[in-house]
């Protein structure tokens, strides 16, 4: 029941928003809706942990099945495992903060909030669905509002970016159609084909079939996970998107890729994954190091963050391809960690931009003096990004590296070390930005009188920071919760 509520509440909120009278009501409705959603997510976590504590070891909890298209054996199958619960938590936190980060959207606010919430609905639906068809439906539902959100409320060459982003992501999802249909028609569950992930997990697909559909599915999800060389939508898209959209997109939407790769591509076609992982490992390790090195030469804050997201999300896929529980656990942790901190980053960039009206790093400087609160938050986000212990990034990265190191052969070693070297590069670009953006002398006279952070901005950033710190300091519960679910996927 609670899972259905997780979809229904955003839908209702979006509808209610469309009928709101004025800006104030719109914002209040959105905020209330998403607060309820956040509460519900925590309640789900509580229920989940309680069930697990009471010894329930079903791979998927709170499962529900509604027959939908019996003729094609399509069912509205929902249920959650530890990974989904974690991702739902992430999503509800990010959308909650996203609402507050876009508190000052002025024109067409109703449409803005409604689209944003619809996008979130897609993401929630994606994470709770167990049926590939339903999953795919929600996947596309999450992608499409992006076009309008960037196109209408974006900045810069927004139309171009929005189009590029949408088309590339849809091209990815087009591959997914091929992938999931291939899986569907090669499955045989009691004489019929099936879209149900749980039923499909037990299928032994022939290796020939896997060789074709594993790459297709993996690339299909990989596009949204910024897999090299299909990542180029990300810099343009992020740089043009409005704040909350960047937050949600980099924070949550890019995670659909990793989640899908793990739970569909790899879980269903493990043999091909083993056989072909090397190709994608090379691509992802390129993503990791290439993204990081690419950042150094950027000067626009959003580009910096977009490329760094390429690097970090590359690490997610990289870890997944290591095909062991530890690395995959790290991947999920990294998704959450990156989701939180990149949302924080984009939120802060938006807040800074609204004050200084520039995103070029060297045009700003010394903001620490004039905007202490936001600057400190930026530093914390930066530290999380470069993997400071006590913040979430460290937990995730270390888990990935330890997991990746479980492969003793030369190829994996080399590629892992290449990936690890990104921590150095990350430090370089983070500190470079922090150094010239926040520290040093104040660049322009008018920056002396910037407006300090408002309550809603503080609420958004503090929420994210708290989440980052909690995961950074006490990661065991989360890690164990994810680990448990991985058993069912990878064993």
């Amino acid at each position, binding site marked *: 029941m609670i899972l259905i509520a997780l979809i229904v509440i955003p839908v209702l909120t979006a509808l209610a928003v469309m009928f709101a009278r004025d800006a104030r009501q719109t914002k209040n409705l959105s905020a209330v809706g998403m607060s309820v959603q956040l509460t519900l997510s925590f309640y789900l976590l509580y229920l989940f942990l309680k069930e697990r504590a009471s010894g329930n070891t079903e791979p998927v909890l709170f499962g529900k099945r509604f027959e939908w298209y019996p003729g094609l054996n399509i069912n509205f199958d929902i249920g959650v495992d530890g990974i989904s619960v974690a991702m739902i938590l992430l999503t509800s936190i990010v959308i909650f903060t996203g609402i507050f980060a876009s508190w000052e959207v002025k024109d067409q606010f109703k449409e803005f909030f409604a689209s944003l919430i619809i996008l979130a609905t897609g993401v929630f639906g994606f994470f709770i669905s167990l049926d590939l068809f339903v999953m795919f439906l929600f996947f596309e539902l999450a992608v499409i509002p992006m076009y309008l959100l960037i196109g209408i409320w974006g900045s810069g060459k927004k139309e171009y970016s929005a189009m*590029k982003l949408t088309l590339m992501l849809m091209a990815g999802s087009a591959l997914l159609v091929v992938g999931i249909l291939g899986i569907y028609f090669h499955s045989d569950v009691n004489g019929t084909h099936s879209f149900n992930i749980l039923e499909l997990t037990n299928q032994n697909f022939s290796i020939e079939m896997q060789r074709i559909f594993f790459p297709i599915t993996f690339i299909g999800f990989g596009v949204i996970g910024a897999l090299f060389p299909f990542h*180029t939508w990300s810099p343009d898209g992020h740089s043009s998107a409005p704040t909350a959209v960047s937050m949600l997109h980099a924070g949550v939407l890019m995670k659909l890729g990793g989640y899908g790769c793990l739970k569909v591509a790899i879980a269903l076609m493990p043999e091909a994954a083993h056989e072909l992982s090397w190709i994608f490992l090379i691509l992802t390790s390129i993503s990791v190091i290439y993204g990081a*090195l690419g950042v*150094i030469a950027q000067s626009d804050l959003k580009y910096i963050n977009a*490329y760094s997201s390429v690097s970090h999300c590359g690490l997610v896929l990289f870890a997944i391809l290591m095909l062991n529980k530890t690395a995959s656990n790290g991947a999920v942790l990294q998704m959450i960690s990156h989701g939180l901190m990149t949302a924080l980053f984009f939120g802060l960039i938006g807040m800074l931009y609204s004050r200084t009206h520039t995103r070029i790093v060297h045009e700003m400087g*010394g903001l*620490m003096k004039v905007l202490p609160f936001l600057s400190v938050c930026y530093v914390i986000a930066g530290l999380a990004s470069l993997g400071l212990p006590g913040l979430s990034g460290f*937990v995730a990265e270390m888990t990935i590296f330890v997991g990746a190191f479980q492969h003793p052969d030369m190829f994996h070693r080399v590629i892992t070390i290449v990936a690890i070297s990104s921590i150095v590069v990350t430090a370089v670009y983070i500190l470079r930005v922090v150094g010239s953006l926040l520290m040093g002398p104040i660049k322009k006279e008018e920056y002396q009188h910037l407006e300090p952070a408002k309550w809603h901005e503080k609420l958004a950033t503090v929420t994210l920071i708290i989440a980052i710190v909690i995961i950074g300091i006490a990661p065991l519960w989360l890690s164990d919760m994810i680990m448990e679910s991985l058993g069912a996927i990878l064993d």
Partner: protein
Amino acid sequence: MSYVVLIIALPFAAFLINGLLNRKLPHRLAGWLATGAIGVATALAWFTAFTYFFQSTSFEKIIPFQVTWLRFTETLQIDMGILLDPISVMMLVVITTVSFMVFLYSLGYMHGEKGFVRYYAFLSLFSFSMLGLVVATNLFQLYMFWELVGVSSYLLIGYYYDKPEAVAAAKKAFIITRFADFGFLVGILLLSYYTDTFDFAAITNPNHSAFTTMTGSSFLGISVLTWALMLIFMGGAGKSAMFPLHIWLPDAMEGPTPVSALIHAATMVVAGVFLVARMFPVFSFHAPEALDAVAFIGAFTLLFAAIIACTQTDIKRILAFSTMSQIGYMMLALGVSGYGEHGLGFTASMFHLFTHAFFKALLFLGAGSIIHAIHSNDIREMGNLRRHQPVTHIVFLIACLAIAGIPPFAGFFSKDEILAATLNSSLVYFAIAAFTAGLTAFYMFRLYFLVFWNRETVYEHKPHESSFIMLVPMIVSAVGSAVAGFIPFGKFVSSDSQPLHIEMNQTVANLSIVVAATGILIAWAFYKNESPLPEKIASTLKGLYRIAQKKFYIDELYLFITKKIIFNLISKPIAWFDRQVIDAFMDFTATATNKVSAEIKGLQSGQLQHYAYIFLSGVVLIVLIMIFNYA
């Protein structure tokens, strides 16, 4: 002994309170809060040391506290705990004591600074991390606190964040150590893969079965274990500013002077030494090659830094190079040490670490006191300060004597042990160590004479003696520097936790005194009064002098690698490649589609007959193909 947790928790609490309340907290309260916390921690640390060393007979490893923090696999997990053994207890004492001194001193030194609360927050964070580092029960916990230490160092170096130099220095420090940590991390991963644990108790047990596998398999002709340890040492070298990862330390002097005293002289920079000491059994039993590397790097840095120190004019930079040099001693001692009965080097190294912490902290505090008085770091702008700052003068002199190795001050004893240990190993190392001892005496007294004697400089404001609150820690440290040498260190700290009996090697001792005295005398001759001699020598050694003064152009080399190679030859091309090749390809698919669309528009000519023609040819074509297919 679970109260030990408090030693770590108190500074952390201070950090949290100061950090979160920041602007809402009055300066005085914040300062005293942090100082009080570290004071209590110091008392507890001393108490712990006392109970550990004097109340139990054998120095076992005690783990009074441990929780699981993160599980990687069924066997591989990170615990957060506290490990008490001789070196960690010793380190606890050193860190809390020096911290306490510095906290106290800073109350005066930083008085009236705008970021006073922030300063104490960071300082508390540092103490917390450093303490966590030394009591780590496993390699990964150590690594975590290692990183935290790095970041607090970053924050403190960049304390004056509106000064571009400070920002650059902070960045440099962090990135260089981060690079070293990259090696450290790979080393940890490599080691843990084979041993399947991070736990020191297991890793440092030389009989662990995994080591035979690791020494068995090799990569590029060097055993995997040696690789792992060398990589771990790389981390240590970065943090301890060993050549060639040393370039951050001189720049780190941009931070407030008390910070330099605490972090960049007494505690953090010796973390590398601590790390090697922690892993010493493995080094010693299974990877002598790695230990040789430690010795070599130590010896090289020792001499290298001392040479540079002779040519510098910034008081803090001289001290920084001297720190590098002294840490080189410690590394060298570890590198030449054996295990158990042959563990003189180990004990010597730890002993030197201990004494060095006091006198080097004292030197920095003294330097701070001077800088505070005349607002300059340049020794050329100083002179005859003994008139204005008598107390500072005395304590500074004590510290100089201690570092120069003049009995009965602390440095003499520890350095003497190191020299003795090197003598047991290799004559070359001994020669380097002994020569540098003289060099040390020379450059320290060059500094001393230039600052406190020499000519009378005209000061803008008349220099004044520092306030009481700054003098107290200096005096306490001076006492420590004077008497610490008499501690029978071998009884407490040794490579195998068994008391080690150490006899003073009289010849070595005499030699070292002579060398040190020579150094001091030369300095006296050159710098006691204004004299043209140094200039002359500098101009005869023109090229060499310049190279040394420019720190052998290592910074420029790094700059070349980072700016020219990484930025211009890698990053920029990548950024270009991404936009102009990959992205352009994606755009190309779109423009190509549009282009094709424009090309074929003639198909739709508007001519009805043309349409019919295509219709008919289509039909005929399909018919032909299909008949051909199915005939």
